[in-house]
């Protein structure tokens, strides 16, 4: 898919920008703090209705403004569509071809975006919560059913935890109800975990050749989904009722599961160097491009935030080799000397200064 043009209003320091994009490479140049990343973030917001930098989307609204709006025309192989999102302090409205999309699950996943940014090191070093969010986001963008199951699971989890607290305080003494809600939770859990495991398996089947080319055949990478339970969540939770009631929360399930990345069979978050960790993140992100392609038969848009400062020149070369395919790519950088003539000819350049883009 190709983002043809974009309009951005009141987004962080970008007051008003209207841009036409190149279908291959778009290079956003500027000094630090001028709004380069904000442009990428606005594309990310349009795709996911979320920010990659903050959990509080309203922070992206320009100080002193009531709303921010991003809209874009996107070309797919067989159709084109207009997308828009308007955020106010309290509301979030999304439209496709000017028709409001009441359910977010029917909006998210229509524009597919893979972002590589300095924050992504958290996929490796962050706590399990961040790793789960990563899976949910990347998996959710090609599977509305996954988003739906996850939403249901979270609701049931809240009900179960509330029930556990009520049993703890002797307000309710109904173990049949606890059985029922535990069974209901387990049903959704098994759907979520099954989809996550297939996702990780697929990524594993793609990632090694990518990682080898990035590391000149030196490293072997593997991702492992670590469940908090063995096979039968329902039976295993049943054996832990006492504990769960004591702590008033659910001790096992996909909301506690984790992701471990191995480099040459060692846990990269412990043994990997900073550079190895960055390369691993890049390999994961590039694998996701192929994952999305395999699911929707269309390449996603690639957003590369400040990669030149993140990677050494050999890795960069492999990356550039990779993005020469028909993948629309956005790169932010402070310094264009990294970019060779061949790429320059293919690219559009955008210069960002104090929120103005030209």
């Amino acid at each position, binding site marked *: 898919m190709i983002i043809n043009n974009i309009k951005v209003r009141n987004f962080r320091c970008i007051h008003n920008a209207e841009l036409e994009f190149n279908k291959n490479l778009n290079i956003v140049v500027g000094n630090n703090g001028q709004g380069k990343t904000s442009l990428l973030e606005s594309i990310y917001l349009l795709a996911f209705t979320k920010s990659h930098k903050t959990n509080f989307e309203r922070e992206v609204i320009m100080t002193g403004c009531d709303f921010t709006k991003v809209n874009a025309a996107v070309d797919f192989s067989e159709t084109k569509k207009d997308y828009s999102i308007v955020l106010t302090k309290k509301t979030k409205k999304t439209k496709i071809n000017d028709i409001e999309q009441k*359910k977010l*699950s*029917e909006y998210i996943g229509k524009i597919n975006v893979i972002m590589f940014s300095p924050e992504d090191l958290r996929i490796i070093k962050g706590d399990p919560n961040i790793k789960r969010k990563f899976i949910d986001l990347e998996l959710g963008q090609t599977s*509305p*059913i996954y988003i*739906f199951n996850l939403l*249901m699971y979270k*609701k*049931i989890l*809240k*009900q*179960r935890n*509330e*029930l556990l607290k*009520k049993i703890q305080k002797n307000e*309710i003494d*109904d173990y*049949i*109800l606890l*059985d*029922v*809600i535990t*069974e*209901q939770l387990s049903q959704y859990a098994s759907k979520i975990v099954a989809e996550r495991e297939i996702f990780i398996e697929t990524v594993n089947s793609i990632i090694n050749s990518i990682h080898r080319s990035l590391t000149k055949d030196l490293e072997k990478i593997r991702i492992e989904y670590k469940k908090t339970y063995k096979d039968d969540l329902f039976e295993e939770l049943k054996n832990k009722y006492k504990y769960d009631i004591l702590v008033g929360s659910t001790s096992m399930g996909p909301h506690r599961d984790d992701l471990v990345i191995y480099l040459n069979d060692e846990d990269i978050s412990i043994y990997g160097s900073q550079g190895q960790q960055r390369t691993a993140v890049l390999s994961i992100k590039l694998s996701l491009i192929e994952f999305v392609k395999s699911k929707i038969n269309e390449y996603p848009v690639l957003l590369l935030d400040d990669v030149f400062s993140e990677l050494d020149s050999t890795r960069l070369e492999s990356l550039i080799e990779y993005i020469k395919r028909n993948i629309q790519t956005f790169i932010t950088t402070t310094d264009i000397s990294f970019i060779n003539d061949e790429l320059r000819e293919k690219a559009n350049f955008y210069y960002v200064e104090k929120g103005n883009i030209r």
Partner: protein
Amino acid sequence: MKYPRAITELIECFSKYPGIGPKTAERLSLYTVNKIKKEEIDKFTKALIDTKDTLFHCPICGNITDTDPCYICNDKNRDTESLLVVEEAKDVIIIEKMKKYDGKYHVLNGVISPINGVGPEDINLRSLLERLQDKRIKELILGLNASIEGEATSMYIKRLLKNSDIKVTKLAHGLPVGGDLQYADEITLLRALEGRREI
């Protein structure tokens, strides 16, 4: 500047309704003051009072009624073999409109939801179990909403009837009739696929 007491009190009353915020409450109140005639108000007041003076839950099925038992429970022509369990009174109205179901109902007046402080004791379950002692009842149809609370309540009822001979069924999820496949969302489609049956 403040409204006279009668208006602020009316605004407060309207604000108690779900879906009515302070601004709508204000508009309705001023509309009442300016546009609605005294006779209409008398009728309105009486209707409001009657909801409390004449209505109650049917002791058998839990539906809202002004007769004891309600007209459905009292109907000798209805099939006594099946019982349709619903969440609230308006669900009975919808199904009755269809005119194809001639069994009886049981209205739970709620669904189990620990977060909202609603446990099995707080909905109309006990009388359901009492009713099911009636050996004539062969099938219990669960017609609760497809929310997680509705789903949990259905599972709970099913569990309570584990050792009984009563057949427990659930309304099917699926595609809207006359609808095109391409207009159904993925979740509806998946449910329809999971609930498919042989023809």
